[in-house]
């Protein structure tokens, strides 16, 4: 007979997001970043646990309560062209949230507000009646941002907001998001596979591997002194304008395991260059010291409210372990 396998895209992920804070979420594709985003917004019902927004559990989608909550939680998508209706002029799409929630006054007032939003995100007033396919990728993403901000959300989930854009445009859109955050003060869950992007945007960063958070902390600390062997590998693989000279690049062997069949023990152990026997049997938990957290047996507590990183595979320390 058929045995059913359960895919746990996300397992035991827990995080808090303070008002006005930006949490960056990094990891390889398929590690559960987007699922986390959908869970946060209540688009997917969690099989266990709950998402709490401003003290209340996020209701399941398709209910009126869920629809009302959209006023406060909005999303920026990876593919702006796909997220826009190609048959409507952009001004109508930017004004649509007002119509949906019955706010923003008369038709003319809504249009005026939409025009103000266009200016705010750096679109020209004469582009109001253009259709999405007539705009560039960056402009389309600006439309999506304007539409999301129309409702003045308190939480903005950005799922790879710039990865579909040209590199030259990416910085502009990121700067725009950063400016808008300073002005309007929304919190954000910022998802990307690109460390540089996350570093620029986030107040705090969480690294995901196979549906679990393996490390968390302030971006400067996480990227300068990564604790978890997986973060170390990610950081060492990031391209740098200084070239790879003098850096110890860690190349992970193998592919990420099938999320349907997560390895026992530490999920990272089959690919971990420094794994020890214990990693195969015991699941490490995310332990917290100060503003950093890590889920690794080898990243020991250094005392005094800090961690010592897991040994670097090319360092002498490894021989001692």
């Amino acid at each position, binding site marked *: 007979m058929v045995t059913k396998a359960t895919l746990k895209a996300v397992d035991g992920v827990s995080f808090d997001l303070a008002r006005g804070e930006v949490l960056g979420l990094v990891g390889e594709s398929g590690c559960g970043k987007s699922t986390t985003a959908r869970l946060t917004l209540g688009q997917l019902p969690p099989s266990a646990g709950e998402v709490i927004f401003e003290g209340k559990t996020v209701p399941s989608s398709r209910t009126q309560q869920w629809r009302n909550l959209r006023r406060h939680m909005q999303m920026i*998508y990876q593919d702006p062209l*796909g997220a826009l209706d190609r048959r409507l002029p952009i001004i109508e799409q930017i004004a*649509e949230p007002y119509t949906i929630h019955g706010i923003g006054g008369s038709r003319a007032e809504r249009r005026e507000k939409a025009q103000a939003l266009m200016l705010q995100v750096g679109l020209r007033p004469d582009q109001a009646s253009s259709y999405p396919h007539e705009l560039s990728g960056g402009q389309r993403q600006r439309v999506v941002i304007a539409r999301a901000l129309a409702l003045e959300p308190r939480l903005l989930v950005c799922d790879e907001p710039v990865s579909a854009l040209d590199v030259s445009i990416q910085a502009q859109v990121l700067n725009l998001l950063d400016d808008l955050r300073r002005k309007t003060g929304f919190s954000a869950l910022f998802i990307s596979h690109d460390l540089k992007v996350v570093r620029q945007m986030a107040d705090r960063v969480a690294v995901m591997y196979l549906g679990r958070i393996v490390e968390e902390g302030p971006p400067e600390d996480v990227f300068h002194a990564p604790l978890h062997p997986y973060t170390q590998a990610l950081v060492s693989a990031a391209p740098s304008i200084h070239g790879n000279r003098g850096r110890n690049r860690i190349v992970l062997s193998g592919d990420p395991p099938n999320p349907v069949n997560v390895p026992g023990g530490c999920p990272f152990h089959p690919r971990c260059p420094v794994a020890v026997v214990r990693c195969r049997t015991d699941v490490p938990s995310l332990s917290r010291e100060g503003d950093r957290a890590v889920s690794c047996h080898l990243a020991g507590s250094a005392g005094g409210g800090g961690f010592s990183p897991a040994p670097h595979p090319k360092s002498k320390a490894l021989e001692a372990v």
Partner: protein
Amino acid sequence: MAIADETRSPSGTASVFTAKSRASAFFEAWPPVILLAIFWIVAMLVLIAFGNFFAPQSYTAMDLQARLSEPVFMGGTFSHVLGTDELGRDVLSRLIASIRISLTIAFLATLVSACFGVLLGFFAAFARGRVEQAILMLIDAQAAMPFMIIALAVLAFLGNSLPLFTILLGFYGWERIARIARGLAIAAQEQGYAAAVRDLGASPLRVYGRHILPNIASTLLISMTLNFPEVILLETSLSFLGLGVQPPETSLGAMVGYGRDYIQSAPWIMLAPAAIIVLTTLCISLIGDWLRDKLDPTLGK
């Protein structure tokens, strides 16, 4: 192109050359066959709208003196251009009345089936799960059964009247529209604009009515165009068998049906409406195929 035109226009031969290339570009976009087909359909629409002005007589007026008189091109007189039938009724007048009835029924039926199909297709896409499975099963059952047989059974059980007959034909082809509508709606809501609008907090009515429907309208319109001739064939077949449009009303199929008894002595009674049926369905099919190739090459058959 524009630059080439300007540089060539001073010399005499060049203007002829550009005129020719313009004409060929025009016919490339609008093949002559399609233009003819559109012309024919427009002519039919004019007949439906203003048929009464063209009809020389009332379609029920009998002229028992001039029964089975030949049309003009077979040696008849101009008083009955297309001849008369077995009761001396003017074939041209009857033909116009038949066109109006047959095409109006087919048009209304196509609309009904499109509405019904889109509603069910959207509902399946929206509800998913068991409801969707049930609708899919209904679609399969409908597709498995020749519609003509179902139509005959319904007519036998419920009797016949013009509104009932039209609604009955309106169930023809709903399953294809429903299948297409469901597929496109699922594709739209899985990723992209529909999901985005839903994330804004839009109600399902808004997501489906204001966003998905306009986006898939062209595909639906094409499948309606392809449905239309089949409804004409179905209506005329049933009327031909004497089970569709009932006298004193007349339809293209009914005319062929009654004319069939005079196939030997007065073939024109039957041939005129038969020709109209064939030409009209042919033209609509051609236009439908052309639209499909032009607008939506992904739409399967």
